[in-house]
C-alpha cells in the first residue's frame, strides 16, 4: 500500500469508528484533496463531515479548534505547509496554549494534516518543511511518519490523542514507496522513535522522506567501508524521544543528523544539543548536520533546487567525514 492510501484508509476507518471525527480543508470534498488523501470520504460520510472550506487557513484551523473544544475530533487538511501562515495564530497561540491556559479544562483534540517537503520542483511556496515553527510551540505534538505503516497507525493514534497534533506528510512519500499495511485496526504510538537499521559505527538521526535517502547512504557505507550505520527515525519531532538516539550514540560514539528543513534551529540543532548535553563523553567525533542551507526553500529551477535539497551523496559524504574523525 502507498503512503497516500495508508492515510486515506486511516481516515476512512477513523470516521467509521467515531462519528465525532470530521474533515475540513480546501478541496477535501468534491476533489478528494489536492493529493487525494481524502478520496471517497465525501461520498461515504456526506458534506457535513467532509467540509470543503472557504479559502481561509485561519478559519480552517480555528473552526477545528473550536469544534475540538466542543467535543468533536477534527482532522483539518492544509494542502501545503507553505500555506499555513494565515493559521499561525490559531496554531501557536490558541491550539498550543488552550490546555495550558485553562489548566486542562479546555482541550483541543485536533489533528492538522500538513503536506510538506521539496524535490518536486514546487518552488518557494510548495516545497518547505517548516517543522521547527511548530516544534517551538510547547502544547503541539509534531509528528512526521516516514512509512505507509506508520502513516496509518500514527494518524489513527493522532486522531485519538487528546492534544493538538501537527501531522507532517512528505509529498514525495505519497506514491514513492509501498509496503504491507494491515487492513485491520492498529495504532502506532506517538512520542516513540524507531531504529530502522541496526549499526555499531555511526548513528544517523532523521525523519520523514529523508529516512529513505539515509538508509541508502547507510548501505553505501557498508559496501564501501564495511561500516554499519544505525539509522534512527524520530517519527515524533516534539516532544522528542531522546532516549532512543542517545542510547544509540552511546553505542556508536558518532552522530549525524539529517533533515530537509533549513539548518539554523532545525531539529538537527536540538538533537545535536541534546547529544552534547547528555552524551558528550561518548562522542569520538563532532556531530554533523546534513540539512538545507539557510536560504528560502526551495528555489524553483532544477539546478538551484538540487543545490539545496538533500541527496544520498550529501548524506554519505557526511557519514564518511564523521567516520574518518
Amino acid at each position, binding site marked *: 500500500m502507498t503512503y497516500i492510501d495508508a492515510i486515506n484508509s486511516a481516515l476512512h476507518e477513523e470516521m467509521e469508528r467515531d462519528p465525532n471525527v*470530521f474533515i475540513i480543508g480546501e478541496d477535501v470534498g468534491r476533489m478528494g484533496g489536492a493529493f487525494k488523501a481524502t478520496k471517497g470520504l465525501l461520498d461515504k460520510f456526506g458534506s*457535513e*463531515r467532509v467540509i470543503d*472550506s*472557504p479559502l*481561509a487557513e*485561519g*478559519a480552517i484551523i*480555528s*473552526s*477545528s*479548534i*473550536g*469544534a*475540538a*473544544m*466542543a*467535543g*468533536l475530533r*477534527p482532522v483539518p487538511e492544509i494542502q501545503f505547509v507553505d500555506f499555513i501562515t*494565515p493559521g499561525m*495564530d*490559531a496554531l501557536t*497561540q*490558541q491550539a498550543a*496554549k*488552550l*490546555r*495550558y*491556559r*485553562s*489548566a*486542562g*479544562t*479546555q*482541550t483541543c483534540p485536533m489533528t492538522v494534516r500538513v503536506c510538506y517537503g521539496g524535490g518536486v520542483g514546487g518552488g518557494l511556496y510548495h516545497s518547505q518543511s517548516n517543522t521547527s515553527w511548530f516544534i517551538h510551540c*510547547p*502544547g503541539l*505534538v509534531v509528528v512526521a511518519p516516514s512509512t505507509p505503516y506508520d502513516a496509518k497507525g500514527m494518524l489513527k493514534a493522532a486522531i485519538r*490523542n*487528546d*492534544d493538538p497534533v501537527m501531522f507532517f506528510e512528505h509529498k514525495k512519500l505519497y506514491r514513492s514507496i509501498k509496503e504491507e499495511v494491515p487492513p485491520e485496526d492498529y495504532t502506532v504510538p506517538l*512520542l516513540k522513535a524507531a531504529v530502522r537499521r541496526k549499526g555499531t559505527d555511526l548513528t544517523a538521526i532523521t525523519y520523514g522522506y529523508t529516512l529513505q535517502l539515509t538508509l541508502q547512504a547507510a548501505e553505501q557505507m557498508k559496501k564501501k567501508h564495511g561500516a554499519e550505520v544505525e539509522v534512527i527515525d524520530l517519527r515524533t519531532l516534539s*516532544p522528542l524521544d531522546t*532516549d532512543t538516539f*542517545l*542510547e544509540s*550514540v*552511546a*553505542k556508536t*560514539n558518532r552522530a549525524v543528523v539529517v533533515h530537509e528543513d533549513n539548518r539554523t534551529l532545525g531539529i538537527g540543532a536540538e538533537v545535536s544539543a541534546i547529544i552534547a*548535553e*547528555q*552524551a558528550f*563523553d*561518548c562522542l569520538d567525533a563532532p556531530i554533523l548536520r546534513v540539512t538545507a542551507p539557510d536560504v528560502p526553500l526551495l528555489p524553483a529551477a532544477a539546478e538551484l533546487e538540487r543545490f539545496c535539497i538533500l541527496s544520498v551523496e550529501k548524506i554519505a559524504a557526511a557519514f564518511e567525514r564523521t567516520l574518518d574523525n
Partner: protein
Amino acid sequence: MTTASPITEVLHREGSQQPDPELLRRLYSYMLKCRIVEERIRVLYRQGRFAGNYFAAVGQEATEVGTTLDLQPEDTVAGSHRNFVTNIMKGTPLTLLFAHIYGRATSPDQGRSAPAHCGYAPLNIITPSSTIAAQQNIGTGIALAYKMQRKPNVVVALTGEGATSLGFWHEAVNFAAVHKLPIIFVVENNGYAESVPVSLQTAVEDISIKAAGYGIPGVTVDGNDVVAVYTAMREAISRARSGAGATLLECKTYRWYGHSEIDPAKYRDPAEVEYWKSRDPIPAMERNLASRNLWSDQWKQELTAEINREVDEAIKFAESSPKPQEDEALDHVYSFSIRERELKRKVWSPRSQMGASWR
C-alpha cells in the same frame, strides 16, 4: 441594518407588551454588580494587591450585560480582554473571579492566564488570549460543533471595533455566514482601540454595515442602553437558535478609562469623556425604572450592600487561597506529563550501552 434605537422605540417595537419588571431590575442589578466589581478590581490594582494589569469595561456595562444575560449554561461566551465581567452574567462564582485576579491556585486556570483573561469551562467561557479576533474564530468552531451535534446552543463572540480591521475576524464572520452557524458577533464599538480612534480604524459610520458583505444581518444599537442591547441580542439569539444563522451586532459605547490600568488615556478630549460619562448606562436605567415605578433609593442601597458583601467575601477567599507551587508551571502542557522530561536528565557515560545515570 437598523440604527441606534432609544429605549422607547425598543419598547414600542414590542408593542403594548411591557417588559417584565423583574427583567428590567435584573438588567440594572447586573450592571451595578459589574461596575462595583470592576471599580474594586481597579482599587486592588492601585493598592498593588495583584500583579499584571486589568482592562476595565467601566462605562460599557449596558453592552456587557445586555449581550450575555440569560444565556444557557451550554451557550459559549468567546470574549476578549475587556469582557472579564461577562463571567458574572454567565454565573462564574465571584470567589473564582477574584482568585483568578490574584493568580491563585484556586482560580479556574490555576494562575496561568493574565488577570483579565478568565475563562470557566463548566459554563463554556473560553479562556481568552491577547491576540485579537482569535476567540471569534474559535467561537465559530464551537458554533460549527453545535450545529453538527444538533444542539440548540449559541456562541456569543465579543470584540472591540479594532478587531474588525483584522483579516482573521472576517474569516470567522464569512465562515459562520457560509455555514449558517449559531453565533452572534458582538462588536463593542467603544471609540478606541487602545489609543487609535475608530475613524482611523474603519471608513464606515456603522460597523454593522460590514455584515452585508457576508450575507448576514447587521444591527447597530446604542450600547449604553441596556434594554436596547438586550432586545437586539434576544432577536439575534433566537435567530441563531432557530438555525437561521449568525448576526453582527454593533453596540456603540464608550470606555471610561484607559486601555488598561497603566494607560492614562491622554489621547482623548476630556470633554468627550465627560459627555459619555453623562450618558452613564446605570443612572439611565435608574431613570427608566423610576418612570415605571420600579425604583427606590433604598433598593439600590440594599443591592449595593449585598454586592459589596459578596465582593468582600470573594476577595477574602482569594487572599486566603494558596498560591500555585512553582513547579506546577510544568503541568497541563499536554494530556501527558512532561515533568520527568523537564526535571530529570539522563547522562550517558562513555562506551557504555546501558550506562545512563540520572543527573
